[in-house]
């Protein structure tokens, strides 16, 4: 099917290009080019580039080609091309162009370029502080074989660091609480993986574990990935259920069931919207009301955005009186936007490609000024204003001359020179 569609698009593109190259009439050529551009937009769709297909149609086939046709019609240049000549240079050019074509095309067909595999991306890693008793202002470093990189500084409880991209390899995580002893834990980061390091548990020596995450594009529409991590109590396994607004027995769903302490749930994919979440002791049940006693924590109106990877951590929060209470910490990070979509391109434009984007703005400004400079002079030339004055004087002098038979002015008024300044050809 794809091959057929490609053949269809490619044929139209080639036909358009041939029309453009061979037509004697410039307007036909322009329409041929529009055809090619439209066909290319179709091929862009085949290649997963919907946004560019749109731009190609609107900006290229639309705005730019309209400008071309406008200028062709403005100049009446549609038929100016009739005296085509074929001197030696284009013949040489054809030979060179064909040589270039074969130089590129032949080896491309003999070498399978699909074989090139993109190298796996470097691993990304972040740190979540959910350790109840080690306090605020924690510094985290990642010590590799080559160098030591700070992952987070001054991190408070419930806070999360940004993702950091590091080279793959074995590392040691060092967690230094303010005024406390440094905790270390070895982790291994493989290429292409995304990891969240979680420090959790009560006491001076919290546990450290690694939760793998998935930042690739969420395939389901308007959805996000959710992972629940149990960091509450070593003796309790938890479940995350949906209770609706009230504890209505008929409105329950279990999203994560029976997660033991220190582990993460399977990934569930949820549609965006408002959720009423409850974290319950033991097994979550979809049919039985677990009873209010079993509910450890609630998140009444939890708003889930789309295209996120959510890590919800249920951790132990120390109360003023020393007792422990469960607390929820939803941590979201955006997944990779869908490939080739406007969002993906927009994000890149405003982050990595900020500099060329700004330069582009300056470039367009320069082009605007340039277009004005180039075309302005002909609108109000100084010479013509003089001529207008003379033309007004002309009938008057003619009248005087005809009535008196006497030439009033010596120099005859002159019309603006409209003669063709074309050089004689064949020089």
């Amino acid at each position, binding site marked *: 099917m794809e091959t057929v569609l*490609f053949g269809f698009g490619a044929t139209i593109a080639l036909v358009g290009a041939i029309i453009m190259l061979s037509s004697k009439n410039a307007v036909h050529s322009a329409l041929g080019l529009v055809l090619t551009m439209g066909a*290319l937009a179709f091929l862009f769709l085949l290649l997963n580039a919907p946004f560019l297909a749109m*731009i190609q149609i609107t900006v290229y086939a639309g705005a*730019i080609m309209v400008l*071309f046709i406008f200028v062709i019609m403005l*100049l009446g240049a549609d038929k100016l091309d009739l005296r085509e000549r074929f001197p030696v*240079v284009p013949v040489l050019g054809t030979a060179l*162009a064909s040589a270039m074509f074969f130089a590129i095309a032949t080896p491309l067909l003999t070498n399978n370029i699909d074989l090139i595999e993109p190298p796996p991306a470097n691993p990304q890693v972040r740190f979540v502080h959910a350790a109840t008793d080690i306090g605020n202002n924690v510094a985290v470093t990642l010590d590799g074989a080559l160098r030591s990189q700070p992952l987070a500084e001054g991190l408070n409880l419930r806070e999360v660091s940004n993702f950091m991209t590091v080279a793959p390899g074995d590392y040691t995580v060092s967690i230094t609480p303010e005024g406390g002893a440094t905790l270390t834990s070895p982790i291994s980061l493989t290429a292409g993986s995304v990891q969240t390091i979680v420090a959790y548990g009560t006491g001076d020596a919290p546990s450290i574990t690694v939760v793998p995450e998935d930042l690739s594009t969420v395939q389901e529409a308007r959805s996000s990935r959710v992972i629940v991590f149990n960091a509450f109590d070593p003796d309790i396994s938890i479940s995350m259920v949906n209770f609706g607004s009230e504890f209505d027995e008929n409105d329950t769903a279990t999203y994560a069931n029976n997660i033991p302490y220190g582990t993460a749930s399977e990934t569930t994919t949820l549609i965006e919207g408002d959720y009423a979440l409850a974290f319950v002791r033991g097994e979550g049940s979809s049919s039985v009301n677990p009873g209010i006693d079993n509910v450890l924590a609630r998140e009444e109106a939890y708003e889930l955005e789309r295209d996120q990877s959510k890590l919800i951590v249920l951790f132990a929060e120390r109360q003023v009186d020393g007792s422990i209470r469960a607390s929820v910490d939803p941590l979201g990070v955006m997944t990779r936007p869908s490939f080739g979509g406007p969002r993906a*391109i927009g994000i890149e434009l405003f982050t990595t490609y900020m500099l060329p984007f700004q330069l582009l703005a300056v470039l367009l400004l320069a082009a605007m000024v340039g277009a004005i400079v180039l075309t302005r002079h002909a609108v109000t030339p100084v010479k013509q204003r003089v001529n207008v004055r003379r033309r007004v004087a002309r009938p008057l002098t003619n009248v005087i001359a005809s009535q008196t038979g006497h030439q009033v002015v010596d120099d005859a008024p002159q019309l603006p020179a409209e003669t063709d300044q074309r050089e004689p050809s064949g020089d």
Partner: protein
Amino acid sequence: MQTEWFILLSVILFTMGVLGVLFRRNAILVFMSVELMLNATNLALVAFAHQWGSEAGHLFVFFIITVAAAEVAVGLALIVAIFRTKHSINIDDLRQMEG
């Protein structure tokens, strides 16, 4: 669908654009042939971006399209200006300077 086919089409279109620049004498058509070359480039970039799964190719196409718009503005202004003076946009007539 293999990337090669898209690249092959792009090479053909690019070569046709080169031929257009070399053959056509009407400045507007020469200029349109350059646009065809840029379009061929766009196709190659989108095909490669698809193969690598990287956005950089898409961004490149975005920049090429916008730069082409700027180029068109200046280029057509130049053509209009020279047409006003000379009443011809045949590039064989551009021989004020002996060379």
